[in-house]
């Protein structure tokens, strides 16, 4: 009897270990926020527009139903307002502050508009999903509810959102699949410290290449699948608007962007170049000077 129990437990633990080896899906957190035009405050667009509030709640509900982790915009807004009194300028940059503080990976801008007509009323919702760190657009959907002779805009907004929310999520998932396959995008700006005698057209080793060319070659070799795009280069600045880095490292953990920078720093140190760096989300800023 003991032997049978022992065998059963061994098999059970063996299967448990195999199951734990499988890489789980990283489920990003999503926050729906109101769309605000330039000069408008996100808070006002939320508090003064009942339709926006309804649409945001419906988007959140739809995500919750699909089992996606969501962050409540209203709660985060209140949290931010409690912690500080906002000036007018701060009001305008409130969107960035809320997104930063919320820890959301993706935010969805929701714009809801009423459409009146003698044949019936409808609501049009514009949904745009963005990567919170890179600002990259992930998906866009426009959905209009059917026309009904009703003033129940809540129901119309619900109908408009329900019609497209699955497609929005599916499009975001398609983008995720591309990220898994091709890596995630980071941007990198390389500049020279003010007052430094170094410039990017300097030769820092015996290869005969300029520093800018050496950096570009390094980026090409170290970018995921060697994919990168350089926007421009001068004696004082290089801008890479796309460098692909892997999503996971060799051990299956999330790849940290700082790893990429450490490798570049060590490489340039050997060439007698000092690297100062700032990493904000997926944006890397490098400042070079002589060692």
């Amino acid at each position: 009897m003991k032997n049978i129990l022992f065998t059963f437990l061994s098999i059970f633990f063996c299967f448990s270990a195999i199951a734990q080896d499988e890489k789980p899906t990283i489920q990003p957190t999503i926050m729906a926020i109101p769309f605000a035009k330039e000069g408008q405050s996100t808070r006002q667009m939320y508090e003064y527009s009942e339709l926006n509030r309804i649409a945001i709640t419906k988007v959140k509900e739809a995500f919750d139903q699909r089992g996606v982790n969501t962050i409540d915009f209203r709660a985060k807004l209140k949290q931010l307002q409690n912690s500080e009194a906002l000036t007018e300028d701060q009001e305008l940059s409130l969107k960035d502050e809320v997104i930063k503080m919320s820890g959301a990976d993706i935010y969805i801008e929701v714009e809801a508009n009423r459409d009146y007509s003698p044949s019936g009323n409808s609501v049009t919702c514009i949904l745009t999903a963005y990567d919170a760190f890179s600002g990259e657009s992930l998906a866009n959907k426009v959905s209009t509810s059917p026309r009904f002779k009703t003033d129940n805009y809540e129901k119309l907004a619900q109908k408009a959102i329900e019609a497209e929310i699955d497609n929005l999520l599916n499009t975001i998932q398609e983008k995720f699949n591309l990220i898994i396959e091709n890596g995630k995008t980071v941007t990198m700006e390389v500049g020279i410290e003010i007052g430094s005698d170094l410039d990017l057209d300097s030769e820092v080793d015996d290869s005969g290449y300029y520093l800018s060319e050496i950096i570009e070659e390094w980026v090409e070799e170290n970018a995921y699948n060697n994919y990168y795009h350089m926007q421009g280069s001068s004696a004082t600045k290089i801008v890479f608007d796309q460098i692909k880095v892997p999503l996971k490292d060799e051990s299956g953990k999330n790849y940290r962007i700082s790893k990429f920078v450490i490798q570049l720093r060590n490489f340039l140190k050997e060439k007698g170049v000092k690297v100062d760096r700032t990493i904000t989300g997926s944006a890397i800023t490098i400042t070079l000077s002589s060692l």
Partner: protein
Amino acid sequence: MRILIVMFTLLIAIGCSKTIIPYQRTGEVNAVSHENSIVVLSSQARGESLGKAAYHAERNAFENLIFKGIPNTNQESPMIPNETKAINANPSLFKQLLENQGYTKFVMDSYTNGSSNSGGVHMIEQIIKIDLKSLRNYLQAEGAAKKFGL
């Protein structure tokens, strides 16, 4: 004489036997309506009997929905983007779901909207109401479809 009788009988038997129309996936699946996590599709198919044609239509609707996506619905993208990879990874699941009509548990309603018979071939238009949420959850639980995320 006996040989002639046998041959004649065989010829009659062959002549009277029905042509078997095998299942073939087509793109003849169109959106009727969609709301929340429910989609209603119209699917056209052929079969040697009305029952067989209805089976082909339903299977065609599910295969298009899962592997291709249906335009103008709430499932425009495929639930499983790489069909070959998914079927090779889990052949018994898809045999059960598609060939053995395992999909019926996700069918909320299915009826024939119109049919015609031409030379023993039944052509049918089947209207099928599908519970997308349950289908998606089932495919995710079986590991055939990816859960939302990276």
